């Protein structure tokens, strides 16, 4: 094992982490402000990817597709909030889970009805094609570096939005005391719609970015949704900072586990079994990490102060 390989795997872990952060940020924001568990977040990720693939195919430009993914996911989010989610804030978490689970099924079958069952084609824009040299002599795909950069920008933007703007102030106020900011005359209903659309847009953005290197297909959001839930549980539900650190932790742990565990098992068992056993443990690793963290800190790494 060389330094170059370790560095490449670390970057892979970071990139996965950043992508998870884009998903987890919206999820945790929505939970933090509105106290809502949104299982349909993965569907908004899918909406982003499909919008990007469709518009990119029409116009020939990935960038217009990317803008379309933001618009489509935010619009889908706003509509869903106005029509369905709005009725769920005062209800029990179980009702929210059932209703948003129903939304997953509707989004999936609706997408299949519109686009068919075969995966769509979405390619990386020419500007970000290919690989660049890294120190140590190895190469790394430009596009993955771009995902890391985009994720870092979004994280910074979210931080500025929440700590420096009036909207951010209201979001923070909404997190600490919903009734009070309503009583102070803030239009809480509009605020909720805006926050939901913002979370949806982040998920759609993640879907479009990742769609270009994965498969744009119905049901693509659910595996990511599970990881995003792991991230926000580790980070502390409702905390953006927790989501960022949780996402990076999960991304790096998962990648390094897949890379190192089979090698570790080689010390004990023959190669064929090492691959199988190592691979099996690697797939459990992030859940083991989550269990350990919850055993030590039951409310996650950065629980919001009020909850």
């Amino acid at each position: 094992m060389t330094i170059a390989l370790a560095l490449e795997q670390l970057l892979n872990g970071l990139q996965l982490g950043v992508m998870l952060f884009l998903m987890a940020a919206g999820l945790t924001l929505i939970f933090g402000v509105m106290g809502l568990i949104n299982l349909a977040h993965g569907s908004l990720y899918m909406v982003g990817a499909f919008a990007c693939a469709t518009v990119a195919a029409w116009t020939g430009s990935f960038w217009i597709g990317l803008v379309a993914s933001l618009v489509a996911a935010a619009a889908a989010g706003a509509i869903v909030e106005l029509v369905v989610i709005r009725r769920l804030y005062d209800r029990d978490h179980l009702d929210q889970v059932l209703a948003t689970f129903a939304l997953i099924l509707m989004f999936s079958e609706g997408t299949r009805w519109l686009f068919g069952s075969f995966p769509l084609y979405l390619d990386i824009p020419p500007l970000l094609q290919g690989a660049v040299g890294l120190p140590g002599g190895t190469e790394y795909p430009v596009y993955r570096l771009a995902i890391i950069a985009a994720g870092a920008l979004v994280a910074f933007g979210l931080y500025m939005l929440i700590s420096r703007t009036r909207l951010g102030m209201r979001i923070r106020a909404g997190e600490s005391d919903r009734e009070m900011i309503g009583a102070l005359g803030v239009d809480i209903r509009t605020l909720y719609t805006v926050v939901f659309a913002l979370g949806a847009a982040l998920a759609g953005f993640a879907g479009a970015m990742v769609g270009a290197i994965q498969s744009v297909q119905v049901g693509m959001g659910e595996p990511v949704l599970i990881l995003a839930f792991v991230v926000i549980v580790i980070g502390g539900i409702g905390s953006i900072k927790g989501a960022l650190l949780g996402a990076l932790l999960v991304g790096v742990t998962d990648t390094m586990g897949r890379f190192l565990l089979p090698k570790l098992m080689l010390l004990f068992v023959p190669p064929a079994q090492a691959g199988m056993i190592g691979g099996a443990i690697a797939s459990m690793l992030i859940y083991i990490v989550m269990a350990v963290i919850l055993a030590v800190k039951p409310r996650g790494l950065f629980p919001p102060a009020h909850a």
Partner: protein
Amino acid sequence: MKKMLAAASLALSLSASGLAFAEPLKIGMITTLSGGGAGLGIDTRDGFMLAIKNAGNKDITVVTEDDAQKPELAVQIADKMIQSDKVDILTGIVWSNLLMAVAPSAVAQGKFYVSTNAAPAALAGANCNKLYFNAAYQNDNLHEAMGEYANKGYKKMFILAPNYPAGKDSLTGFKRYYKGQLAAEVYTQVGQTDYAAEIAQMRASGADGIFVFLPGGMGIAFMKQFAQSGVKIPVMGPGFSFSQDVLPAIGDAALGAKASGQWAPDFDNAASKKFLADFQKEYNRLPSIYAVQAYDAAQLILAAASKASVKDAAAFGTELKKADIQSPRGKFKFNTNQHPIQDIYLTEVVKNNGVLTNKTVEKIFADHGDAYAKDCKL
């Protein structure tokens, strides 16, 4: 010549549609029509229904249900089809883990199961059953062919498959024929979408060839990511990795990839040309190997049903085993364990009039059976 052809095809169609079955036949198709694996199930259903439609027989009904790639759902559907729909034959399951949940109990209840794709080793050897037929292959076959192909010119292979029964069968099959050195043997999660960690290992492994078995969306994600990684090692795989259901989504990243298959759209025989033309006319797309396999499964059932009643299991089984069909694959017959003996070819992904498809390169195996038939006592 044209007249002769017309007369021949007329005679053929008359003989097919003119036959009345001894008794009405009811087939239950359980396949994956929703979720990430839906492309495979839809091709299975469409290929099967094409043969049924071509036969034009009113005595035959097919009930189709979606298993959503979930074993527990497949079991429920199978129970319902056997108990309340009273089907005679079950078919259609794409995934080996689902098949293992359904087929053994269906045959135990005296129903035929004719597999259109899944072919786990567990049902091909000592646990073979006279009511269980496989019209596709045995899971190991296409991987064995790639192992044989890799012997020519590849000294150190990196092999990768998902961690589930067919994934293990895959790498076992590859290693059964591959004589060179292995750089690494890696198992990934089923449904994994990011392969950066594995691609980095490929880059560092010093391998001169890569064999991947990643059906459906997994293969799309892998090939797109591999193309961007700057790793220049040639990639090969079984036909599923580059089948017609995934090629449009992978795009040009798949060009030049070598794979193994029992059929490709450029096969030069009358049955293949007819199948290809009919399928394109009916569904307006190119068929995948899943469609061919299901088409043959339906042809096998139709051929047997025209000779024997499905209620007489022994006679129907004997007729099924004769495999009296014109397969698009060319030669096709059943082995002692009721899995196919067939030719397996090397194919290459090419662009034909702007459409990505597979072209036949050479024959790897002639009349290839499987390694488990010797343990089957039928």
